[in-house]
């Protein structure tokens, strides 16, 4: 049993490689409990790469290598004895493109709990998860219909519901709104505020308003050309007000105000 700490995820001088290519360097960051942390920065600076390190999803990529460590409540996620399957059950992920399974809405939610042999009342869990993702009222009469028949915004909330059905500790979101219309985006943002009561959320976003409106902490990533390719790094990490109103770095100021290069 791990002791719950104020810092959920902590990295120290993390370097991430794809083959010989250093994609992200020197990531040192502490993600606080029950808060929303936003990752912002230009494309290709390694936001997704870092995010996917936090639940070992990068293990799927053959060329992926990592130096340094990622602590989750003080435990090294990349220690040899750690089971990545267990990690992913505690640290869920919502992807950029909504990716519901081609199954019924009900089965989409029940998929994860069934994996772990959930013994409780499944109907209740499905309802609770869909309510948690603010989708229940829209789908309660068509739980048997395919999840892929929903609108894009509904699909994304279905994916969020599917993630919270696992009752995770942390939810990682990689640009969850970039494929959604503005109304759906607002719905998801409202949802984020509710979710942070229970979960720790890390969200990658390209939308500055979204980051400043919804997040408590913001990490600004940038990328610089090195002889071996473009390597990303964290320029500045602080409370969101500080990043958006009085950043210490010139580059941060330029990026958040839209004057970026």
């Amino acid at each position: 049993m791990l002791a719950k700490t104020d810092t959920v995820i902590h990295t120290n001088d993390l370097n991430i490689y794809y083959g010989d290519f250093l994609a992200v360097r020197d990531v040192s960051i502490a993600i606080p409990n029950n808060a929303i942390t936003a990752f912002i920065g230009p494309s290709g600076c390694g936001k997704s790469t870092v995010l996917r390190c936090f639940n070992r999803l990068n293990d799927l990529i053959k060329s992926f290598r990592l130096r340094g460590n990622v602590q989750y409540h003080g435990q090294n996620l990349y220690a040899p004895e750690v089971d990545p399957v267990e990690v992913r059950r505690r640290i869920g992920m919502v992807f950029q493109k909504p990716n519901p399974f081609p199954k019924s809405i009900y089965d989409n939610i029940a998929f994860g709990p069934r994996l772990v042999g959930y013994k409780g009342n499944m109907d209740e869990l499905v309802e609770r998860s869909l309510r948690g993702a603010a989708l229940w009222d829209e789908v309660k009469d068509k739980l048997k219909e395919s999840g892929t028949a929903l609108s894009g915004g509904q699909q994304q909330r279905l994916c969020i519901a599917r993630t919270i059905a696992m009752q995770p500790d942390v939810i990682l979101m990689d640009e969850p709104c970039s494929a959604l219309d503005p109304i759906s985006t607002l719905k998801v943002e409202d949802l984020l505020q509710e979710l942070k009561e229970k979960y720790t959320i890390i969200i990658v976003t390209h939308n500055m308003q979204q980051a400043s409106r919804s997040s408590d902490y913001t990490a600004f990533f940038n990328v610089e050309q090195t002889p071996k390719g473009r390597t990303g790094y964290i320029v500045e990490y602080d409370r969101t007000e500080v990043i958006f109103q009085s950043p210490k770095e010139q580059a941060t100021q330029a990026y958040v105000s839209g004057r970026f290069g």
Partner: protein
Amino acid sequence: MSDSQALISRSLRRNPWAPRTLFSNVMTGLAIACAVIAIIPLVAVLLYVLINGVSRLDLNLFTQVQPPPRVENGGLGNALQGTFYTVGIATLLAVPFGVMAAVFLSEFVRDTRLARWIGFATNVLSGVPSIVAGTFIYSAIVLTTKTFSAFSGGVALAILMLPVIVRTATEALELVPSELRQASVGLGATRFQTVAGVVLPAALPGIVTGVMLSVARAAGETAPVLFTALGWPTWIQSIWQQANTLSLLVYKFATAPYPNQQQLAWAGSLLLVLLVLVTNILARFVIRRRH
């Protein structure tokens, strides 16, 4: 007058005798003619078999045993039974192995040299003439067990079905978006749970289509069962004895000098053609339902 004015003042009306209109019309006509010619063999075969076979298409055809020479009536019951047994055995063997091989190729070694080699081997196997599959099973099973049997016929047919199933199933599995695999893995599914719970169900329509088409093909094959199942004049009690099949019966009765047997050969051909037609239509239906 400037160029653009010249363009505007030219008539927009179609001129049916303009060379390009004429050329276009001729080519369209030619294409239609070629399409018709391509369909003629199909229609001719269907009609010919239908006209010659339909007279015997009744219940007796399915319930009665094949008639000996110079005996009237009779049916194709035992040949249908044999086809059912051999194709059933072939399906039971080829589907699990074929689908598992496809899962291995698409989910475990995709884009590796091993996958390319196995893919190449499957392609070669699918090009092997069916008579070769028959001789192979003849020497591998018939000679060693010292008996012809429905079972050995089934194994020979399985060899023909296997590459078709491997290829169609691999294609169906590779079409499953990687986002779905990531979603499953991201929820904490193991590799097995991802394949069994997400990837296979998503690919199922494509896999079923491939299986159905290979079943239709196996049902019509003659060469593999020619010296494995060999033929048998009446109902069989077990898969370990000789059996007749529709294709074998057609092969033997069509060339027999007895009108009754010739008629049954036509009826058997009709059944085979109908089988292929129905499975193809069903396969299309399954494909359509996916979208």
